[in-house]
């Protein structure tokens, strides 16, 4: 089952035209330049904009069509707005309680305490909103949305005001929340990193229209989209753990095109792990090299070659059926004589475990 979304919204010169399906499970990232309509889309889904000819079906229930329009408060959503939007007349605790009191959620539930402590706001509970920093306000807003026991989360750049370290702490928690509740999440983000890490599905917006929509792993390596051509292009691969070497802290991960050995904390066999491979971290050699600290070297065929600039090339390599992007200099490509269909060795310097 999936969420069906059809909207046509006009705002001055801008118009948003959406007709798509969003999976009912997992995280769908909404990605697009500033002004591309991300916030407008979330607002429409929340029922805060009332597009005339809209259609919206969530969990098999029609939220909006020609005859139906569920009011915002009748939609079981949790919404974190782009701007900090705490109630100015309530302290932090009461802001959180506002959502809690109106949900069916058991008030003594431990998970809310978890949220509060994981987002690091225990010491702020008695404060008024204007006594908080920008990032603190955003964190409270996240907890408040979670407290409302939503069956769908709409997050508009919830982590924009937070630093990398803090993000790294909060993201795993958010993931666990989604997974535990098994609710769909629409996540507006500007950060490719966040998307890579969190999202299963991706909706690329451009000037109010959908430029692409599909699985993150596919879209990130699609040469038709700008993502693969950016300097920081990357490949995302979902793999399965086959073994873990506790002595060196190395996990062996299997995917359709071979396997990766990755430094990590202990992992259970058969769990699914997402890997991130920056295109710049992939180099190409003609022979299998020895005597290097690079652990992951495997044969691939060159599927596509794109010259990005006078000096840079993007390669799309196939390891089995799994595409992997590589960025090399034109000079290397020339000196190694690379061309489509060649079989070469891909050296993957670093593999990051995303989740």
């Amino acid at each position, binding site marked *: 089952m999936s969420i069906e979304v059809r909207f046509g919204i006009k705002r001055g010169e801008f118009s948003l035209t959406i007709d798509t399906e969003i999976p009912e499970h997992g995280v769908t990232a909404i990605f697009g330049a500033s002004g591309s309509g991300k916030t407008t889309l979330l607002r429409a889904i929340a029922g*805060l904009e009332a597009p005339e000819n809209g259609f919206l079906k969530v969990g098999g229930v029609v939220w909006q069509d020609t005859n139906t329009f569920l009011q915002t*408060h009748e939609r*079981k959503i949790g919404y974190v707005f782009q701007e900090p939007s705490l109630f100015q*007349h309530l302290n932090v605790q009461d802001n959180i309680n*506002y959502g809690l009191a109106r949900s069916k959620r058991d008030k003594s539930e431990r998970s809310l305490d978890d949220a509060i402590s994981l987002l690091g706001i225990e010491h702020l509970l008695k404060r008024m909103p204007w006594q908080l920093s920008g990032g603190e306000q955003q964190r409270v807003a996240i907890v408040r949305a979670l407290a409302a026991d939503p069956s769908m989360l709409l997050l508009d750049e919830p982590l924009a005001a937070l630093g990398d370290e803090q993000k790294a702490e909060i993201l795993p928690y958010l993931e666990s929340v989604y997974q535990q509740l098994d609710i769909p999440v629409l996540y507006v983000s500007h950060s490719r990193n966040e998307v890579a890490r969190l999202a299963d599905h991706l909706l690329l917006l451009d000037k109010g229209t959908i430029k692409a929509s599909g699985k993150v792993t596919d879209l990130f390596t699609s040469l038709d989209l700008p993502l693969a051509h950016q300097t920081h292009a990357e490949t995302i691969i979902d793999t399965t753990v086959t073994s873990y070497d506790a002595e060196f802290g190395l996990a062996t991960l299997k995917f359709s095109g071979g396997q990766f050995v990755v430094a990590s904390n202990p992992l259970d066999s058969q769990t699914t792990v997402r890997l991130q491979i920056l295109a710049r971290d992939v180099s190409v050699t003609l022979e299998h090299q020895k005597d290097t600290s690079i652990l992951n070297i495997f044969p691939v065929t060159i599927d596509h070659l794109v010259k990005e600039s006078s000096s840079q090339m993007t390669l799309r390599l196939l390891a089995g059926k799994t595409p992997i992007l590589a960025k090399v200099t034109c000079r290397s490509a020339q000196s190694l004589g690379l061309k489509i269909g060649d079989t070469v060795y891909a050296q993957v310097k670093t593999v990051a475990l995303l989740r």
Partner: protein
Amino acid sequence: MILSEQDLTALFVTLKLASVSTLVLLVVGTPLAWWLSKSQWRFKYLIEAIIALPLILPPTVLGFYLLVSIGPNGPIGGLVDALGGAPLAFTFTGLVIGSVFYSMPFVVQPLQNAFSSIGERPLEVAATLRASPMDRFFTIAVPMAKPGFITASVLGFAHTLGEFGVVLMIGGNIPGSTQVVSIAIYDHVEALEYGQAHWLAGSLLVLSFLLLIVVYGANRRYTVAKP
């Protein structure tokens, strides 16, 4: 005791009238102000203008027209009579109606401004947190419009205290029922009983001052921390 028994009665009637009127004003004015602050109706400004109109007539004259309308031959009086209600003129209820009518703009306008200045965002946020329109109104709009409520109550209450023309006209200055302090002071002044007028006016002022201090002082404690 410098204040006569009749003066004390008048003081009591006045406080009762002002309290009841303020209550009625808030009960009637709040939804009206809310509607005015939210409505996109293109002729809304006509309603806004109409609400301000009673202010423009001299109170005694307004009172005269009110008297004629609620009198036995007037449209309102006739209607009330047809419905089997008791006549309104020269009763406390009549006074309340007159005061409410006259002080309405002082309540509606500050409230409308206060509601408008909240903006849509807090209400939208509350809606996403599952608050129904009613719920949003009482838990978000009303507390956030607190300064507006204070202004509305103070202006409405004070204006009713000092109100005079309307009350005199439709109340008939009947001691114990429709004679309010303002009229009693006026009577003293008219009868050249200046001493008594001073005392009564002074008492009213001191009482009101204390009341205002309590209201504003309490408000101050609430807002002092906020920048």
